[in-house]
């Protein structure tokens, strides 16, 4: 099922997703998996590696005109770093970009993150189809 955006049906490879690792955490197994799996599902993924500052992530998202930013973090700094990305995107004119996150994030923190503008949080055990469903639904309503 191809997602619909406004009047146009969006082909998957026109949906651009930035997968980024903010902060100092170097565990990139999950991020690399998601990047690769999303590519295999037909999306365009921009992967910027580990140790990205928030400024770099936001600037990249805006330049690449992505529809989604996926943040991966296992170091527990998500409550600080994720909302800051959302904030800065808004500041730089990227308020329409949808931010989602993944990593080691307890459920109670998920609620807080959602309040602060992170639209979905995918924790260990998430399948790629859950992620693609989210992307398609979010695109359709965007």
């Amino acid at each position, binding site marked *: 099922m191809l997602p619909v955006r406004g009047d146009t049906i969006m*082909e*998957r*490879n*026109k949906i651009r997703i930035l997968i980024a690792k903010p902060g100092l955490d170097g565990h990139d197994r999950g991020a690399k998996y998601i*990047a*690769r799996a*999303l*590519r*295999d*599902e*037909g*999306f*365009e*993924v*921009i*992967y*910027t*590696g580990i140790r*990205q*500052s928030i*400024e*770099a*992530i936001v*600037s*990249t998202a*805006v*330049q*690449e*005109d992505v529809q989604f930013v996926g943040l991966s973090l296992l170091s527990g700094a998500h409550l600080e770093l994720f909302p800051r990305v959302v904030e800065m995107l808004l500041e*730089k*004119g*990227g308020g329409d970009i949808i931010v989602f996150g993944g990593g080691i994030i307890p459920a109670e923190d998920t609620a807080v993150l959602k309040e602060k503008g992170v639209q979905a949080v995918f924790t260990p055990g998430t399948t790629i189809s859950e992620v693609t469903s989210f992307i398609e639904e979010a695109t359709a309503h965007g």
Partner: protein
Amino acid sequence: MADVVSLVQGVLGGNIRSIAKSISLVENDLPEKEELLKKIYPHAGKAVIFGITGPPGSGKSTLLDRLIKTNRGRGKKVAVAAVDPSSPFSLGAILGDRIRMQSHAADPGVYIRSMASRGHLGGVASATIDTVKILDAAGFDYIFIETIGVGQAEVEVATLSDVVLLVLIPGMGDEIQAMKAGVMEIGDIYVINKKDLDGADRLKAEIEYILNLANGNSCPLHPVKMVSAEKNEGIDELVSTMDEYVDHMKSNGALMERRKENIKKELQTLISSKVRHLLENRFSISECLECWAEDIFNGEIDPYSMIQENITSKLAEKELPS
């Protein structure tokens, strides 16, 4: 519906968001594309466009990172269109070239855009040319088109520039033989990266030999530069050489020639695409393909006669609709 006027305004003002949205518009071939490009075009033409290509592992991105740094140091604004192939199976792509250039991510004087080939041979060439025009109009002094020199198509894209940097590394052995077979000719400036490795001097000699053969004289028109992007060696010299080369092209008319050639190529592509589009509108070709193929498969008719019957003969009858 995109507001083309305000997008163009934004581009001319150097607004990153507008630049980004405009590039998406042309890449996705949205209906407003032509209108946008018509407005953009008069403002393009100031930037110098470099193509940078070479086999995987040649260190292009690291080199580009250094070139960006050096140019920023001289107060120049730099843009990069990094082209990578899409997966032929899923049509998706992982675009990772910018990782090597991420130290510049938050620098407002640097713009990096990752582009996927999206499966069509001609498609990425058009999208790249259009993207370069937008970046040009936005005021970037140098624009780099970075591609992987593996296939004909990818290499071609690099030639849509004023000057092509062909990046090679020692130890490629057989690859150099393959490259001689046609790809080598596209280079204007040859860059031997990882010059500290064994065989670098040999490679330089080989390249100069081939170039001499091609040019028929002993004074190479094409510089061969040795660098180590990793160690940041030879970069300043390379940048000077690039400057000199461009100046030289400007003064002897070569730049003008190159740009006209590229315009011709662009026209060819656009015309083919236009014609295709018009024919599609007129004859609904994609709808008919299935049953046409069926008939041909069943031996009822051959492809040439099919086209004659359904398209060519009908074209002769009336003018093409506007």
